């Protein structure tokens, strides 16, 4: 939309609209800023004491101790890295095959992608638990990685397939003529053309893996493998907060740093409207 030479009335309307939007977002902004700023105060003075759970055990006023967040952070990082990298590789391969190669059953797989991508995976957790038990990988991070991958792959394959569809076939044919095999052509040329697609898959995969809660909540039990989400949740039961809000706010900040970093880098991708699976699609 043109933004040069606004007329007087357009400028006035824009100012009104900006004011209205400000009023609209104000409660949300307030809520976040005040909540997270509590992390830096203890007994009314500015301090970083509330963050001491990151390095070691933390003793609260009522003598309960909070375990260090480090093991949970480590597990979360392993999980997120595992899911994001495998999701990108596997969906690239699958998306390429579905867009470019001709083989029996291609149509069927394409149609089922559409269904799988909107299917409510959260409702399958009961049976997923059973599958994990049968395969003897229940209650392990490995099992949750596989489930998270399987749930997200249809969506990301669908997105990357659309990116492949948009590449002119000539480019690809010329790689084949130049003596590339399908695979080396794919590796050397095609991947660079779908880079924006790869970035957007990676962003959504990261955000969803890092903030995932429900998979860990249902598929990991006995506190054997804590991740940041279950670590925080264990201290914030609905009925009663175990830690004071200031400590929880500090935990929230630690948890959200990577999210904010990724968000700032990839804001443009997110804005363009190609949001993969909305929030919470596990």
């Amino acid at each position, binding site marked *: 939309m043109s933004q040069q030479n*606004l007329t007087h009335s357009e400028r006035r309307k824009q100012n009104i609209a900006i004011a209205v939007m400000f009023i609209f977002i104000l409660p949300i902004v307030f809520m976040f800023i005040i909540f997270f700023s509590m992390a830096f105060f203890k007994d009314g003075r500015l301090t970083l004491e509330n963050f001491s759970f990151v390095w070691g055990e933390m003793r609260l006023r009522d003598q309960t101790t909070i375990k260090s967040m480090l093991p949970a952070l480590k597990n979360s990082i392993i999980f997120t890295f595992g899911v994001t990298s495998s999701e990108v590789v596997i969906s690239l391969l*699958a998306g390429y095959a579905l867009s470019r190669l001709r083989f029996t059953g291609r149509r069927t797989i394409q149609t089922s992608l559409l269904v799988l991508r909107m299917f409510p995976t959260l409702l399958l957790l009961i049976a997923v638990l059973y599958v994990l038990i049968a395969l003897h990988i229940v209650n392990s991070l490995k099992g949750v990685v596989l489930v998270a991958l399987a749930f997200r792959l249809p969506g990301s394959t669908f997105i990357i397939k659309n990116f492949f569809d948009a590449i002119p076939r000539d480019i690809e044919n010329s790689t084949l003529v130049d003596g590339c095999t399908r695979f080396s052509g794919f590796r050397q040329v095609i991947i660079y053309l779908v880079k924006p697609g790869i970035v957007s898959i990676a962003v959504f995969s990261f955000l969803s893996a890092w903030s995932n809660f429900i998979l860990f909540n249902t598929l990991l039990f006995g506190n054997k493998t804590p991740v940041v989400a279950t670590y*925080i949740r264990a201290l914030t039961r609905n009925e009663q907060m175990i830690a004071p809000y200031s400590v929880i706010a500090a935990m929230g900040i630690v948890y959200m740093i990577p999210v904010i970093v990724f968000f700032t880098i990839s804001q443009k991708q997110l804005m363009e409207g190609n949001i993969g699976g909305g929030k919470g699609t596990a």
Partner: protein
Amino acid sequence: MKGKDLQGYAFLSPFLILVSIFYIAPAILTIIMSFSSLDGAFLWEFVGFENYGKIFRDPNTFLILRNTILYIVISMAIIVLLDLFIATLTTYFIKSDGWASFFKSIIMIPMITPSVVYSVLWIWYLDASDSGFINSFIRFFDTDFVSVNWIAKYPFQVIIIAQVVVSLAYGAIIFSSAIRSIPDNQFKAAHVDGAGEWEIVKTIIIPNIRPHIKFIIMWETLGLMTNYLNILLITNGGPLNRTEVWALSAYHKAFIDQQYGYGAAISVLLILVVFMIMLLWMFASKSKKEGEE
């Protein structure tokens, strides 16, 4: 032909293996489970339609169904209206890209906040004790104010507002990029004809983005119907089942009461509804050839 098949499936094999074992197999298993009395002991015993009968006999079913429908309809209406409102303001009225993306990124913050943290924010905001934000805020102006346990008093309103705030960004961004792609001369022509702003919204913006509105309605309905995460984390269905919705009750029956078969039956019924909506959507977008996304 054979070689081509081999090549295709070589590329697809990791995808197919993972999706069949951890996605399709559980989907089929859910249906089989729903006919069994599987529980914490994991013994298969088939009971026919007993689980389904139990759903209809359960005295809470009607309440849960009512909650689910109200929750979906009210949240969806608010989400779509606010999305239109935000998208029109940030795309049509605010012509400066800097301001527009500033507001859109603010609106995206709740969406990218991990739900575990997001739910604590609401619990703190509405906390019954004096540390709750709203309570201390009101007390700041009215010192005699007696703290209210907002979540216990208005649980249903709370989960709707919390869900709406999270969901706003997705639709607002889709609508906003749709409005952006409306040819500029349509607006110019309307201005020349002396149309007011409200008329422009009504006769140009809304008709142009109708397919996107339909898509968001479908998408949000599916999301609200099946994603129980925020309810689980904020009220956990309580107090006294007042915020229990269908999908959450499947979770509770399976993972809290360990009645896996019963939980699966509840899930299967919901999956059937989801499938009907998806079929309707596919037919609607196929016949009109305007299906977006």
